[in-house]
């Protein structure tokens, strides 16, 4: 039998878990210390945000919350590589990318606190809100990318999905459409090895998730998702490619969900402690901090100061969240349609009356 097609999947890493460079040449942005520090600061804030949010949930001050512990490099790397005019289509835990793009931490809290106002956020007004139904957001990103392409705008749509999400039909349909239309879109798989209790090995027989790109006829690249330099590097590559009309990319970021799936989950039911301990050694903050310290760009004093600042900032955000109170009852109706139909006007009035009745 003759061979009619062949494919390769490449892997990118700059910083190993010990904070050592694995390649001689650094991407341009990484030669700029301020830029690296900016990313590191954001990663640190995200971690403080995460810890505090879990605490809020545990003390009954927040609803179910999806932790991003361990994903900081992937998320901040995505955010840092994008332009404000690009459009972001998150799943539900990419706070690092959203904060970078201007979403306020208390807005994220509002969402998990059961308040839609959190989705009317301070980030780019065209960015989508979370997509809880797994994989559905890829279609929105493809559609946005198609809009950008048709209008000749130099904008890119970026969407994120989990490893579990790659089992959904929507995921593949989008990859295929992005290939067929050569869309300016970057699809990112945040492969944290688990979909709630289902390990990657039970989710698919694939050795890599990047290889799923082959089914869409598009490029797939694997990257160390705990390495902020590699993530931003590959994202910049893929964004630039998309922006210059050279088509879509699927990026698989290899990371690990160190936390429970959400605060409603208990991962000890299904996951080996050793695996988690091992992952903790490879998590993203350690290596970039080590690299920055080794290269003299950072020290313990700055670190302590940063953490204090993050904590203070978080306190402010938590206060904003708490001050938001309950949205008015009529807000459930007011944004159903641009022009509210009669039947909904009647229902709104009844609900408001009912709400007043109960105080």
């Amino acid at each position, binding site marked *: 039998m003759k061979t009619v097609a062949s494919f390769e999947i490449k892997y990118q890493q700059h910083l190993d878990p010990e904070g050592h460079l694995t390649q001689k040449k650094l991407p341009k942005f990484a030669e700029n210390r301020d830029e690296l520090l900016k990313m590191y600061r954001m990663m640190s804030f995200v971690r403080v945000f995460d810890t505090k949010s879990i605490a809020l949930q545990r003390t009954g001050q927040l609803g179910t919350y999806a932790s991003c512990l361990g994903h900081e490099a992937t998320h901040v790397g995505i955010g840092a590589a994008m332009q404000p005019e690009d459009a972001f289509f998150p799943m539900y835990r990419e706070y690092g990318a959203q904060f970078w793009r201007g979403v306020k931490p208390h807005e994220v809290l509002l969402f998990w606190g059961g308040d839609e106002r959190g989705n009317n*956020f301070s980030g780019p007004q065209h960015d989508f809100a979370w997509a809880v139904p797994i994989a559905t957001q890829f*279609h929105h990103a493809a559609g946005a990318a*198609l809009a950008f392409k048709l209008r000749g705008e130099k904008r890119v749509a970026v969407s994120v999905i989990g490893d579990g999400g790659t089992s959904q039909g929507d995921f593949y349909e989008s990859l295929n459409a992005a290939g067929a239309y050569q869309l300016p879109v970057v699809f990112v798989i945040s492969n944290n090895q688990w979909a709630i209790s289902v390990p990657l090995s039970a989710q698919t027989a694939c050795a890599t998730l990047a290889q799923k790109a082959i089914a869409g006829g598009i490029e797939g690249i694997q990257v160390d998702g705990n390495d902020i330099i590699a993530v931003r590097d590959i994202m910049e590559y893929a964004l630039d490619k998309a922006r210059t009309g050279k088509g879509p990319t699927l990026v698989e970021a290899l990371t690990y969900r160190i936390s429970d799936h959400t605060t409603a989950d208990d991962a000890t039911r299904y996951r080996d402690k050793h695996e988690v301990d091992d992952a903790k050694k490879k998590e993203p903050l350690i290596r970039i901090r080590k690299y920055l310290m080794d290269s003299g760009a950072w020290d313990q004093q700055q670190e302590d100061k940063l953490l204090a600042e993050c904590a203070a900032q978080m306190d402010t955000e938590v206060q904003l969240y708490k001050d938001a109170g309950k949205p008015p009852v009529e807000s459930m109706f007011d944004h*159903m*349609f641009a022009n509210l139909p009669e039947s909904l006007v009647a229902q709104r009035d009844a609900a408001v009356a009912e709400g007043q009745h109960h105080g």
Partner: protein
Amino acid sequence: MAKVAMVEAITQALAYELEHDPAVVVLGEDVGVNGGVFRATSGLQQRFGKQRVMDTPLAEALIAGMSIGMAAMGMKPVAEIQFSGFIYPAVDQMINHAGRLRTRTRGRLHVPMVLRAPSGGGIHAPEHHSESNEALFAHMPGIRTVMPSSPARAYGLLLAAIRDPDPVVFLEPTRLYRMNKQEVEDNGEALPLDTCFVLREGGDVTLVSWGAMIHETLQAAAKLAEQGVKCEVIDLATVSPIDFETILESVEKTGRLVIIHEAPKNCGVGAEIAATVAEKAIYSLKAPIERVTGYDIPMPLFKLEHDYMPSVERVMQGIRKALEA
């Protein structure tokens, strides 16, 4: 003015909006060079180019989902699903996103898209090509569902649907595509959504129907007129949200209501109309509300499709029952 069939009126409405609004794009399976399997998009790609009228890969969830993404970015996608029996993969995107994005973001994003699909039976088509599933969409918050029943209403309502800033599911009765040509002025004038159309006035009984069944309903009304029965015929047109004002006004006048639809009876749109009328106008009712509908079975293959779909005879029986009670 030339007479046009419904499918041509639809093509005209699409062409009008493509010409006047650069945000409008048409997309779907085979809508390009082929002009759609029913020719509803015939000639549009040739006229407006591949950037405005696009074939899609064969994936309905994609068609709906991409339309949502495009719409939220300021375009006005008019997507075609080849037959309403193949619309189900799009249900997730419609209920979980199209109908929710505006309220989810408290107005920041919205979804001015139209999802068109040929719908209903009576054209001798293969399995899954003759479905009536408007009730599924009617039950979805945040979505308008519209079904035209004449070339003029197809033209005007489709224009309204495209211009509306919110998602509209637009179900086109295939059985009417080439029936009953009509003069339709291609002047870009939209008809109002959320409004019934009173097609025939009469004081004895109110008939509410939509889509293709309007024709059996009108025929039944005409036949009964010969016997001196005056039927008021209301075309629901916007199947959801329902314009109850017009219906209630009529029922208050006639005291009798017959609802006619092709879709299965159980939890159909007829149920909602009957329930609401029974709630709001019970004291006006002189007889039980009759529903003449499809049965609670899938549309059978075509040897039996006319045993499934309400015939003029069945509509007349329903009316007589309402009159005699």
